């Protein structure tokens, strides 16, 4: 009986909610569209000078429920000292992507949010205020391409991350290494030094047994190995034998060479099949592991896994292209402003956004690449000084799916299948095949896929 009552109550509540949501939706559609005409672009605003007399109260949505009441509140307080008439209020949402997808459709969600990744580029203008032209904003901010549609920027990334190699600073110093390696061969020499001069468990820990850390090596074959932002999405599809050895030791071959040789020279853990991801984070922190090849998201996890977070460092992948170093980088969640909100709120949100990404300490606190191109790198990425950070260009129009098609058809499985990377390690471990044989096979498969899909191949 009780259960029934609760159920019927719940049902009633759900119905009431959906009706409310429906009302909100129609309101938003009628009221919102006209109100963004006098909103400036973000580059026109001078923080601290403009709009001092604007009175508004804005709500900012975030997924960071862990710091919404501490760090983020501090930013809001600092800003409100500067702009006493604007009130900034944060709301943390646990199930961010899902809830925001629902809330976006009803225009009344707040004023500033992280744009959910599920919003397609062509839908951006339905929900978000234009922040400026791509040509104007791109020289100022990093990762502008990610939320640009038709030459207009609708979101600015809250900083970004770069991909490199995790290492333990203390271990490397103890081994007598003073300069970080810049080529695969130097990297292998460093690992050898670590093996000879220290008593770590493994100079390089592969995490083979978990599978996906092997697939993580694929992330470096693009920008880090070629310095070419078009390589991953455009060129590799049309290249004949992309995995072939280059004389200057760049390109995908150089990345896999690093892995193959590290295994062949026994610079990795004793038994890769027995490796364990969870405990490896602690070993990285304690200095029982010299290096791990993983994305920058792993840095924070390794720092938190032990008592010596300062020993965990992150360096660019050791490949030099024509004397220059490159690292792939991508943006975090992008900020977007609600185009259905009142005009004053939109302006206030934009002022706060500009202050947050340009003047606050947010990127030092989060250890990510700042949104401003002129900003300094955080301490966590200090080793990336002088390394050019690039993000992959989007594929050409009409070829959006081509990379996936060639990738799947060939079964080379870059960034989606860990097994081919595992095979490189196996070949090195058992000594059954040379790297040239493995790469030759990949090239063959790649060519066969290009042929069967009728892809134009540049010789």
């Amino acid at each position: 009986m009780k259960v029934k009552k609760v159920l019927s109550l719940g049902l009633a509540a759900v119905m009431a909610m959906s009706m409310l949501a429906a009302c909100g939706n129609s309101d938003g559609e009628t009221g919102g569209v006209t109100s963004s005409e006098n909103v400036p672009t973000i580059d026109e605003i001078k923080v601290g000078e403009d709009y001092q007399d604007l009175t508004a109260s804005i709500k900012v949505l975030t997924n960071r429920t862990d710091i919404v009441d501490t760090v983020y509140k501090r930013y809001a307080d600092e800003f409100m000292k500067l702009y006493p008439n604007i009130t900034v209020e944060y709301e943390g949402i646990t199930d961010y992507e899902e809830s925001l997808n629902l809330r976006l459709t009803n225009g009344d969600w707040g004023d500033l949010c992280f744009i959910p990744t599920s919003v397609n580029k062509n839908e951006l203008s339905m929900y978000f205020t234009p922040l400026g032209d791509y040509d104007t904003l791109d020289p100022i901010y990093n990762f502008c391409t990610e939320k640009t549609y038709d030459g207009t920027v609708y979101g600015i990334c809250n900083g970004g991350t770069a991909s490199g190699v995790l290492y333990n600073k203390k271990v490397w110093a103890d081994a007598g290494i003073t300069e970080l390696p810049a080529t695969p061969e130097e990297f292998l020499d460093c690992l050898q030094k670590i093996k000879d001069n220290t008593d770590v468990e493994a100079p390089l820990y592969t995490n083979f047994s978990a599978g996906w850390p092997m697939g993580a090596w694929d992330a470096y074959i693009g920008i880090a190995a070629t310095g070419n932002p078009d390589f991953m999405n455009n060129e590799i599809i049309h290249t004949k034998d992309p995995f072939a050895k280059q004389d200057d030791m760049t390109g995908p071959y150089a990345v896999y060479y690093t892995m193959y040789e590290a295994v062949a020279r026994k610079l990795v853990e004793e038994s890769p099949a027995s490796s364990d991801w969870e405990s490896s984070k602690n070993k990285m922190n304690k200095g029982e592991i010299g290096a791990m090849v993983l994305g920058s998201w792993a840095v924070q996890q390794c720092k938190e896994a032990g008592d010596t977070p300062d020993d965990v460092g992150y360096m660019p992948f050791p490949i030099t292209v024509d004397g220059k170093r490159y690292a792939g980088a991508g943006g975090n969640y992008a900020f977007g402003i609600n185009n259905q909100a009142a005009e004053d709120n939109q302006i206030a949100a934009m002022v706060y956004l500009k202050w947050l990404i340009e003047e606050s300490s947010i990127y030092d606190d989060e250890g990510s690449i700042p949104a401003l191109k002129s900003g300094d790198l955080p301490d966590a990425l200090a080793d990336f000084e002088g390394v050019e950070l690039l993000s992959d260009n989007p594929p050409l129009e009409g070829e959006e799916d081509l990379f996936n098609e060639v990738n799947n058809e060939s079964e080379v499985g870059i960034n989606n299948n860990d097994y081919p990377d595992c095979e490189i390690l196996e070949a090195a471990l058992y000594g059954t095949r040379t790297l040239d044989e493995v790469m030759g096979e990949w090239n063959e498969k790649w060519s066969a896929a290009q042929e069967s899909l009728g892809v134009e191949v540049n010789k």
Partner: protein
Amino acid sequence: MSNQISAAAKSEKTFAETFRSRKVQRLLVIFTFMLVPMALLIIFTYVPFGKMVQFSFYQMKYSGPRKFVGLKNYIDVFQRSECFKSLFVSVYYMGGALVQLALALFFATLMVFKVRGSAVFKGAMFFPYLICGIAVGFIFKFFYARGFVLDSLLQMAGMDIEKIPYWLENQSINNISLVATSVWRYTGQNMILFLGAMMSVDAELYEAASLDGANKWHQFRYIILPSIKSIVVLNMILSISGSLSAFEPPYVITNGTMGTGTYFVIMNRLAHENQKVGLACAMAIVLLGIIILCTVAQKLFFKYAFDDGTSDESKAAVRRRRKAERAVVKGGAR
């Protein structure tokens, strides 16, 4: 005229009557009761299977357009070296299945004679079967890891770590390590099946046999084994087809690396990581064919060896008896 009328009335009457008749009613009841299970069977088994057969003729991903390619997928299955190499891995699992059946028979026989605490043993032996396969995989991942459970135990027993092989890495034993996990898991279940069959043997037979001076081995050989022959054959067929489709141990413990990829692991990789759904469906159909072949071959073998596994005498024994009978008849005639 009157004849015609009566005929029409008769036929009309027969329709109502036939409907109410016992025979039709019975058919109706059968049909209605069958409706639900048949619908479930068709919707959840035959329609998906039909779809799979259909997919195997297409080049397709889960989403996006499909292209009819005829038998190309099947030709590919037979041309790809890894598909059939992976069947070779199944030979390990078949070997494991035999060991598992022997162990299960052994333990079941022990239990059937009065053993103290047999309920506890039964429970302990059956327990692994209750753990889900993925969990078993994780247990053994740590069990076999270098320097973990198994290595520590062996070291405690005085073995030198240098002499202990790498259980998951050494290609001459890693498949055996994996097979051992599935033996560990299924022995208890097989044992319970055997035990169930053995319970139905009349206990007086043992008594009579022991009065005649038969020891436990004789009792097993001449009383128990012939009585549970059909269960043994069933278990054998299930284990062999099970070993052809082994999936969980290699998938969880080694992810099919280092030469432990079974047919299912390869199939899963093609379907999900490379999105070649059509090819994977063709592989599934080919495997189905192989399993049918194996089952038929086993059936024929047991039919020849044990007379379809249900009669008490084997074909050879029957032939011997017939021969002896004929000799007696001949002798009598003379």
